[in-house]
């Protein structure tokens, strides 16, 4: 009797787990592991994966070789003698123009650009999305529509007027100016992201808070913000990679001493003077790619969600 009851509980527990209904044979027909279909599918995927990995592999290998080995060897061969010299040189000694203090300068510039840009753009866009979702006023939708259409306008069309505006404000060429530009061009997609997220939250919450007398900012900080941490993370991933990888705005809106890492990297690698040091170039390239790659590998699914949101709606 007791056993039966126990058995019953187990069965019902199984049934409570979705997709584990245990009544007779179910699911697709079992397949042999080495069927022709599997060979084709996995074979293709593995070849494709190798193709995608190849440049990363070559980058790493080249950056760990000395120049003599690069000249005689082939780019796919692993280094005979591993050296970290190119990495040190790329970070601390590589030259752009007259400066020979390496990519480290660009790295710190990029940090000084990315951190405030990400914070400010997300702060502005989240409040904005919240206003659009919960506190609609007359004309708000029109401005929002202009904003979204604006996301499709090529940047080249708006660059020069922005240069003039920034010059009038006295911040053309400075980091402040560039941070403003990143905030502006991050706004369409981020606002859309936040607006859609906030609009998807249960309206009763908002109404209840209103009845209790909470105002615009109280509801934002006490209710909306704590409930939307995932979307803030998605927005952060989107912005950090986007701003770190930016080249055009960096080159247009800053002076050479403030050039972000991507611009400096391009200047180092594509400079015409001197002997080409391919190992240093690849080390520098890897260094620049390291920040977005780290974010990518850590964030995993959230990154996919971020770019899907960014791409589908942008």
């Amino acid at each position, binding site marked *: 009797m007791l056993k039966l009851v126990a058995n019953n509980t187990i069965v019902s527990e199984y049934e409570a787990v979705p997709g584990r209904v245990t009544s007779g044979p179910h699911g697709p027909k079992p397949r042999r592991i080495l069927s022709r*279909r599997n060979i084709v599918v996995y074979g293709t*995927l593995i070849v*494709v*994966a190798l193709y*995608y*990995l190849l*440049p990363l592999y*070559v*980058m790493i290998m080249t950056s760990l070789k000395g120049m003599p080995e*690069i*000249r005689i060897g082939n*780019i796919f061969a692993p280094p005979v003698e591993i050296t970290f010299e190119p990495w040190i040189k790329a970070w601390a000694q590589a030259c752009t123009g007259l400066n020979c203090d390496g990519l480290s300068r660009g790295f710190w510039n990029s940090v000084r650009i990315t951190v405030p840009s990400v914070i400010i753009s997300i702060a*502005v866009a989240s409040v*904005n999305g919240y206003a*659009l979702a919960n506190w609609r*006023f007359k004309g*708000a939708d029109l*401005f929002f529509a202009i*904003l979204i259409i*604006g996301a*499709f*306008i*090529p940047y*080249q*069309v*708006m660059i*020069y*007027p922005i240069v*003039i*505006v920034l010059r009038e404000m006295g911040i053309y060429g400075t980091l402040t100016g560039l941070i403003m530009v990143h*905030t*502006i061009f991050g*706004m369409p997609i981020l606002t859309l992201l936040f607006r859609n997220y906030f609009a998807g939250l249960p309206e009763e919450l908002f109404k209840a808070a209103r009845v209790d*007398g909470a*105002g*615009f900012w109280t509801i934002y900080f006490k209710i909306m913000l704590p409930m939307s941490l995932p979307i803030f993370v998605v927005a952060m991933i989107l912005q950090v990679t986007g701003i770190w*990888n*930016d*080249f*055009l705005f960096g080159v*247009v809106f800053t002076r050479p001493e403030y050039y972000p890492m*991507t611009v400096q*990297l*391009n200047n180092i*690698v*594509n400079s015409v003077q001197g002997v080409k040091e391919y190992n240093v170039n*690849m080390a520098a*390239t890897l260094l620049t*790619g390291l920040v*977005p*790659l780290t974010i*990518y590998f850590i964030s*995993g699914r959230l*990154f*996919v969600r971020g*770019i*899907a949101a960014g*791409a*589908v709606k*942008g």
Partner: protein
Amino acid sequence: MTSQTRGSARPNQWLRNLNAKIASIPMILTALVIFVGGTSWTVLYSFTNSKLLPRLSFVGLDQYVRLWAAPRWLISIENLAIYGFFSLIFSLVIGFVLAALMDQKIRFENTFRTIMLYPFALSFIVTGLVWQWLLNPQYGIQSIVRSLGWTNFNFDPLYNSDIVIYGILIAALWQGTGLVMCLMLAGLRGIDEDIWKAARVDGIPMWKTYVLVIIPMMRGVFITTLVIIASGIVKVYDLVVAQTSGGPGIASEVPAKYVYDYMFQAQNLGQGFAASTMMLVTVAIIIVPWAYLEFGGGRKRA
């Protein structure tokens, strides 16, 4: 923080919802000053003969006439057309095929997806520089294949004016197909399992189901992807700068680079404005019909 609606008399229209309006000031300024204002400004000044500084001395369509007579612009447009055509076709086909393979209930799906998507996290500058190295004729793929015995093997797209744009295309596809695959995969996952069952019951082969049933059902996903790829194509700039700097000669120039060079290096603002206006027109040609189909026409979309 008190609510504005609490007053006894009917409050002023402008003060209603004041906080929301204050919060929207950045959006309103961006929309009006930068997007509408900036765009109109550039279009207006494209009809002037501004050189070093913008000046309002109108010359009609002169800048456009000069633009369409400039060999460099014509090469840019031709490159953009080739690059655009092939990157649309290849990204859609490769992206869809990969997504279909990934949708076969395979193991290690996450690993494969991670590998295919990682290039998308990298900037165009990094992408361009890596492929510049891989396509280096002296050390790269060409020399490897030659050392394997095919001594006549030629593959030096970055140093050959005729095919340089394909060298850029290879890099662009490496960077972007992972994203297309992800979008397509999301589309495939949205398709009802019963469709597959019905097709199997009817004995329709798998490829035929994809072509005749699944792809037509994914029309929306395809169109969205198309718009994303297309608006990215028009903007292509960093990749070319990093990979070839427009060379050899002017063989791999693109419109976005033309705009930048004329605005900030050749001190010929009028040309830059005219060229950027042409870019705007190109984007409008892509976006307007799509926006009309998706949102306009009073028709409910599927």
